């Protein structure tokens, strides 16, 4: 059972919905939760988004046209749920305007400079605007290809390539300056 491919899992769900869906849930729950958590930066919101994602998957499973694209379908639903929560917290314009800005908001550096490098890296990631944060998360943690990220986000592959470059460059610079500041203290 553990070695089922996504295509086989889709077939399994068609035959035995309850068990097949439970299998799909256990396969994707940590990935979906981690994706939502990194995007939303809030455990309860990440839980809500994960729950809504799986309920939507269950309700609209018949709409999945290509069993081979199960993974990108799951993440595109998770993305929609996470962005719905983000929009609730922030006006839509704020998310969509200022395309050239990469940083979401400045956090108080003083609170984190004493922490370990990993915590600073995560804090730095959380400061990125959602559009940049999500491509970096999908690439670095979910190992999706550019075409898969494009399917999940609805962007073109070249836009994904460009967003990843911009996110990495900006984050690398920010990380260096934060590390230098911490070391100087």
């Amino acid at each position, binding site marked *: 059972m553990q070695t089922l491919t996504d295509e086989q899992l889709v077939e399994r769900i068609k035959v035995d919905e309850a068990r097949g869906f439970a299998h799909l849930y256990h396969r994707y729950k940590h990935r979906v939760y*981690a994706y939502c958590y990194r995007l939303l930066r809030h455990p309860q919101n990440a839980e809500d988004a*994960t729950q809504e994602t799986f309920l939507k998957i*269950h309700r609209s499973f018949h709409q999945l046209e290509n069993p081979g694209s199960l993974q990108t379908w799951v993440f595109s639903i998770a993305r929609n749920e996470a962005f719905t929560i983000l929009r609730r917290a922030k006006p839509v314009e704020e998310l969509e305007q200022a395309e050239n800005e990469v940083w979401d908001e400045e956090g108080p550096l003083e609170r984190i400079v004493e922490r370990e490098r990993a915590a600073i890296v995560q804090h730095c990631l959380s400061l990125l605007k959602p559009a940049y944060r999500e491509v970096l998360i999908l690439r670095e943690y979910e190992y999706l290809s550019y075409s898969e990220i494009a399917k999940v986000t609805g962007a073109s592959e070249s836009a994904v390539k460009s967003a990843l470059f911009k996110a990495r460059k900006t984050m690398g610079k920010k990380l260096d300056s934060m590390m230098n500041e911490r070391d100087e203290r």
Partner: protein
Amino acid sequence: MTCDTYEEQISALIDHELKDEEAEVLFVHLSTCRTCRRSLQSVLDLRSDLGEQAPPMAPKELDEKILKRTRLAHRASKDRKAIPFHLWTGRISLPVTVAAIIMVFLIAGSLMVSSMTKQKLLPSPEGRVEAVYITTLPAVEVHGNFP
């Protein structure tokens, strides 16, 4: 190409998203450009930094919440499928004009049947004329004498 363009290529290179010919050109540039070599090192460091953090795990109580709700939804849909369709429990929706036409036909039809079943006037033994009407709904025979 400028170093900015090469930097974008470096980002694609570490993602294995660069075509062979593009990678070849990039490697030639990297052999001569210290700035781009530093950029390559920087994105590799960032990747390693990002990978060091343990992934957040979904809390255990989510399992029960989600699987319970989907089980209930599954059972409800099975129950709905198990109920056979009855004419009287089903609803038929028609436009008002179609419904009116059907009603007119039903009324006219019942009147026609009623008049078709109207019997000929028969003379009774007493010399009076007897008529029998049979209506459709409800089926009742009416006997009477003229005058």
